[in-house]
């Protein structure tokens, strides 16, 4: 059982050590270290051990406990972040205990899981935290021995006085070290990477022994004393509100204790409108929905549909874009002068996140405070919503970050958290809110659909001279809906003399949000597919054409062409691109994409059978995420999973809107990749002299176009719309 009252292990303000790492505007990393380490009364109890800073605690028997500050959603962060600290602390990894932090940004700095940011944001700061604790232990030993600090070193959990070979274990030194002033984090010495003992070695998932034996770990497993269960029934049409409901009938159903109308607001990432049903047994409460009848005011969104959007997009495409993103050279003139012209319309659908653990949250409102157990990627943002909605202050809200059964961006939103808090307050009891699968599929923050209308012109040598995209997306008042935007730097912008990128917005009324590699997961498909069309029109090798398009090795904004050229060359080599001759019905496709600071080039080998059945035979991934793969086993797992996730999206996934509601409801109509569809994925990391960057997302985008380009190579059929329709091959 995951129990209530997982109190912060550190009680005294005087023992607090602060570290902040914040993201500067523009994406740069701003390190703001302050570790006041106030001298004086540090009460270190025998059972709790001695606290050296917010992240490191050492008990008298030498047990080292490292706090992991970020939410675990399956990206392996609860293993990887503590590795950084343990490396510089110089302890044996096998003996390290890892604890999940509470949500407490004042203590731990920013705590979230998103944007593949954990590696770039923590790579240096958390190593400094470990090094600072080590330095305190060395200082304590030097005091005990009355020797200069410079004569001391460490070795796996011990301080060594080098001249005399005397040793003192960290456990013996911890309480003394905890009394010392914490060093200035900017001044501590970090290891030479060649001396790393933990970083760069595969460390298996820290919670995995509990996973494989079925121990309660996830949000859905939380139990608190006196807890009731709740479901929350929302309007099938987004933004719909309750006019009336037969609450008395519902309250009379077996197992139901209470049922009430919730009148929330119009903000999707907040308290919604609907009917809450509360009882002692979740299954009975969920069954009671069958007796519920609600008169909904469905609102304006009831008029929206996916087919309507597709029709509108075509109409928009005949007009000039609403917003010009990039306008270089003279596209019209260059097109007119082109030896070869191409035109193509591409589209991709809405997608649901479909975390396998449905959205859920446990909340206990009492005495003007609320304690929350949430599987969330973004706890502090949830705290703000709960505070605002329930009229509380941030300090009234305790949030336990519980392991998430998948995130993929869905749990950056905290709608389910505020629902749970509100229902607990209304019900006067701790409650566990659990959505069923239909709730989850039909009340997501969807990856927005998108429609792209491309033109390109080539000269007689096949060189790309003109390029334009009119992206018809969603938004209002000239502003894109969440995750529905495009950058002015979208490749090949800055690589073609005459280029226009424009965007038009259709009003939507449906919640959208980041899905793993947001933006990129759709844009990579359309741009890297159309570039493939261009390469074929030029009658050139599609991989070499891309290298030629990247041109000289140079920096273009944040993008380093040399790094991308190198991963393209690597994937060409590893996949046997040049030498392999796929049999009839099979083909190889390539694509590259830069996102989340990572450089990825991928090749797919795919086969189409006579009836149109697609087999993805193999994926090769070449990547450059900098100088160091921190945890190789976790890194490979993320890359393989991301590539397969993209294959799943391409092969089967679409959310469609009909009359303002989602047509799909479960895994029989929203199709996730399965074992028999999952090809082998070969992963290569090119190590370069750049700071390490994240891996949760950037392997995903290029695999979709690489697959579609492989299908073109296999059949001559160009896939311009996702998911792939096998009928096209028949």
């Amino acid at each position: 059982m995951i129990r209530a009252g997982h109190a912060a292990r550190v009680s005294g303000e005087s023992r607090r050590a602060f570290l902040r790492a914040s993201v500067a505007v523009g994406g740069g990393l701003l390190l703001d270290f302050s570790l006041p380490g106030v001298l004086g009364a540090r009460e270190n109890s025998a059972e709790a051990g001695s606290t050296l800073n917010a992240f490191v605690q050492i008990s008298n028997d030498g047990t080292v406990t490292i706090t992991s500050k970020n939410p675990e959603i399956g990206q392996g962060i609860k293993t990887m972040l503590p590795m950084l600290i343990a490396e510089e602390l110089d302890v044996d990894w096998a003996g390290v205990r890892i604890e999940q932090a509470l949500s407490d940004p004042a203590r731990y700095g920013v705590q979230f899981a998103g944007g593949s940011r954990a590696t770039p944001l923590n790579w240096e700061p958390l190593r400094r935290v470990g090094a600072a604790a080590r330095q305190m232990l060395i200082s304590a030993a030097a005091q005990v021995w009355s020797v200069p600090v410079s004569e001391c070193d460490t070795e796996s959990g011990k301080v060594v006085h080098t001249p005399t070979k005397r040793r003192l274990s960290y456990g013996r030194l911890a309480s003394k070290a905890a009394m010392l002033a914490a060093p200035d984090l900017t001044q501590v010495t970090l290891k030479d990477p060649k001396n790393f003992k933990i970083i760069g070695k595969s460390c298996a998932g820290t919670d995995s022994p509990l996973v494989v034996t079925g121990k309660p770990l996830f949000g859905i497993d939380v139990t608190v004393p006196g807890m009731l269960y709740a479901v929350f029934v929302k309007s099938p049409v987004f933004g719909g509100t309750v006019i009336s409901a037969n609450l008395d009938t519902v309250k009379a159903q077996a197992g139901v204790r209470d049922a009430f109308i919730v009148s929330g607001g119009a903000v999707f990432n907040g308290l919604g409108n609907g009917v809450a049903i509360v009882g002692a047994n979740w299954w009975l409460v969920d069954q009671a929905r069958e007796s519920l009848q609600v008169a909904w005011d469905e609102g304006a969104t009831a008029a929206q549909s996916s087919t309507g959007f597709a029709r509108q997009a075509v109409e928009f495409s005949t007009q000039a874009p609403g917003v010009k993103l990039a306008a270089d050279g003279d596209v019209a003139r260059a097109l007119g002068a082109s030896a070869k012209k191409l035109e193509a319309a591409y589209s991709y659908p809405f997608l649901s996140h479909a975390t396998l653990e449905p959205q859920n949250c446990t909340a206990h409102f009492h005495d003007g405070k609320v304690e929350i157990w949430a599987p969330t990627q973004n706890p502090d943002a949830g705290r703000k919503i709960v505070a605002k909605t329930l009229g509380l202050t941030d300090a009234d809200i305790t949030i336990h970050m519980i392991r998430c059964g998948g995130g993929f961006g869905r749990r950056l939103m905290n709608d389910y958290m505020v629902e749970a808090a509100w229902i607990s307050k209304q019900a006067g009891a701790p409650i566990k809110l659990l959505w069923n699968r239909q709730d989850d599929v039909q009340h997501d923050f969807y990856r927005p659909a998108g429609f792209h209308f491309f033109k390109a012109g080539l000269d007689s040598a096949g060189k790309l001279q003109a390029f334009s995209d009119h992206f018809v997306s969603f938004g209002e008042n000239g502003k894109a809906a969440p995750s529905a935007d495009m950058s002015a730097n979208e490749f090949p912008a800055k690589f073609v003399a005459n280029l226009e990128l424009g965007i038009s917005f259709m009003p939507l009324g449906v919640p959208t949000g980041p899905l793993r590699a947001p933006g990129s997961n759709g844009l990579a498909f359309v741009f890297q597919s159309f570039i493939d069309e261009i390469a074929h029109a030029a009658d050139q090798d599609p991989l070499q054409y891309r290298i030629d398009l990247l041109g000289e090795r140079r920096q273009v904004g944040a993008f380093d062409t040399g790094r991308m050229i190198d991963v393209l060359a690597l994937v060409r080599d590893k996949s046997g691109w040049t030498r392999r001759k796929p049999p009839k019905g099979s083909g190889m496709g390539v694509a590259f994409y830069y996102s989340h600071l990572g450089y990825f080039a991928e090749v797919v080998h795919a086969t189409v059978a006579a009836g149109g059945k697609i087999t993805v035979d193999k994926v090769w991934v070449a990547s450059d995420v900098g100088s160091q793969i921190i945890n190789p086993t976790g890194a490979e797992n993320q890359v393989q999973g991301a590539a397969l996730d993209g294959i799943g999206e391409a092969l089967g996934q679409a959310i469609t809107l009909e009359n303002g509601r989602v047509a799909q409801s479960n895994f029989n109509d929203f199709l996730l990749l399965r074992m028999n569809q999952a090809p082998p994925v070969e992963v290569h990391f090119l190590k370069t002299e750049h700071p390490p960057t994240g891996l949760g997302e950037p392997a995903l985008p290029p695999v979709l176009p690489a697959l579609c380009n492989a299908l073109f190579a296999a059949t001559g059929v160009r896939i311009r719309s996702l998911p792939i329709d096998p009928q096209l091959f028949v």
Partner: protein
Amino acid sequence: MHFTIRINGKAHEVEADPQMPLLWVLRDLLDLKGTKFGCGKSFCGACTVHSNGVPIRSCVTPVSSVGSAAITTIEGVGATPLGKAVQNAWLAVDVVQCGYCQAGQIMSASALLAKTPKPSDMDIDKAMSGNICRCATYTRIRAAIKQAAGMSTADSRDTFT
């Protein structure tokens, strides 16, 4: 209604609606939280348990249909050498990402190996395609099954050398 059901070798007494799925009896009446809810309609396999050694989807199994069958869950599967070997292989291969589906995967995998001690890649596809892994750890699930079977973890489908 009153039911006596046998779970992991032990008899449990429960009061439940006869239609209540075994999944929810396990999770919320008996506090065995290892078996997971994913879809409620047998599409995803997260709720897989064994009934007399056969993998079933507990989310669509009414408690009244269980009778005297011996139910094994993720909490009990490690009691046999085979179940333990599967769990150990999962750790050695470091399969887990989010971990939510893995109880169901391990239950399906251990049922496969009990029937087919040396499964081919096709056998694995057949036995495991009812279990969704949203993180798509399929490459490692496949390898872990083979490792538990004492086989080479190479993927026979990968003919690209």
